[in-house]
């Protein structure tokens, strides 16, 4: 599973970073990014799905590899 954040949609609510700091990062302006190439370790997949469901801007997308 891979995850991406659309920087144009992200408004810096930081819900994803708070839920899965192992996968998401946030810059000084609050915009979220994914760490590395966005590959989600299997043990974190459920929490990343939760982050997707909690993003108020619908800015996070998942893709199966």
């Amino acid at each position, binding site marked *: 599973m891979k995850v991406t954040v659309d920087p144009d949609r992200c*408004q*810096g*609510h*930081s*819900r994803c*970073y*708070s839920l899965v700091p192992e996968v998401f990062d*946030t*810059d*000084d*302006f*609050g915009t979220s990014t994914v760490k590395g190439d966005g590959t989600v370790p299997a043990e974190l997949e459920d929490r990343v799905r*939760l982050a997707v*469901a*909690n*993003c*108020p*801007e619908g800015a996070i997308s998942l893709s199966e590899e």
Partner: protein
Amino acid sequence: MRPAAAAAECLGERMATKQPVTDWATDFDVLDPNYVADPFSIWDDLRIGCPVAHTDRRGSTWLPTRYADVTAIAHDIEHFSSLEVAVIPFDGEPPEDPVLPYGLPPISADPPLHTWTRRLLLPWFSHRKVGEYEAMTRALCARLVDGFASTGKADAAAGYAQQIPVRVIAAILGVPDTLADTFTGWVRDVLEFADDPERRRSGVENLINYFIAELAQRRQHPGDDLISALLQTEVDGVPVEESVVLGTAALVLIAGVDTTWSAIGSALWHLATHPDDRRRLVDEPEVMDFAVEELLRAYSPVTMARVVAKDVEYAGCPMKAGDRILMAFPAANRDPAVFENADQVVIDRAVNRHVAFGSGIHRCAGSNLARMELRVALEEWLKRIPEFRLAEGAEVAWAGGQVRGPRILPVVFP
């Protein structure tokens, strides 16, 4: 007309605006005591019967209550401007203020002013920066609870919640926390007494005059605070105008005090009246992060406004340029179309796309700070006072309108 007659007519109009509301769909009033006490059932009825309500009290104003409408309007910055964000318009005040030609950026700005002024502010409220404020916040909360923990009773609003955010914000702005009560008074004058134009005006003037003096002082003796930093900032090689710094400093104080204090107070009211949730948080501290989001959803303090920039029909409503839209984020967060059991607090709710901090480009710049303060305030309280309830016969007093939260909250504990 003789002045006395004019005054009487004016008074008559003011009285008229205080008529109790009988039809919420066509004649709502967010300052009506019933709305302040229990807006929830009003929103529930409106969402079904008239999801975008209207009133002509204080000028033509619309009130969307569904999540989909509130968030759609928040994202449509072409039709809905942030040049006026006060829920109650300023009475007879010209919008152009020579001291603050840009208002309070970025909250009262549209792009492009919004974009660069927001970027000035955001780094002060990043996760990293907020982490630096946590130890100070925790020590403050601990000291406050220790002050009354052995007395068996407290006013959880005035004696605790109200005391926290103003001191954290004062530290960020580099202004003395010995003036905390004065700052709190000014912010309440601005936000909580919209029905009293004199009081509101004096609150604004006191705040602005204070910061004018502070800015002058900070130019001479810069510190490591937000105001000093903004005064030294250049954008595209040009120093930021003093009126922008002034507006932004005032904004940080106005937006960072009443709001967070209301969230903390509402959360404590909930825990005082819902012992199961209180015990759960004491026994399972890992639930706290979910609880913070859920309490923010269920008791969202802040309603903002937009002004219609150009005529538009939205959801069948003929909105005219100059009309006001009340951004009822608290109502959106109770929408059963988006939240299961929307009217109940589910203390460990996992899926929670609430918009307590708004939606779109005006997402609350201080949301990381507010979350940290709410979490730490609850943790330090529960650590020392794990059991508490409303005092017998307690008269809880709520403020409402732009910001909703308890102002008097008498609780007792063993």
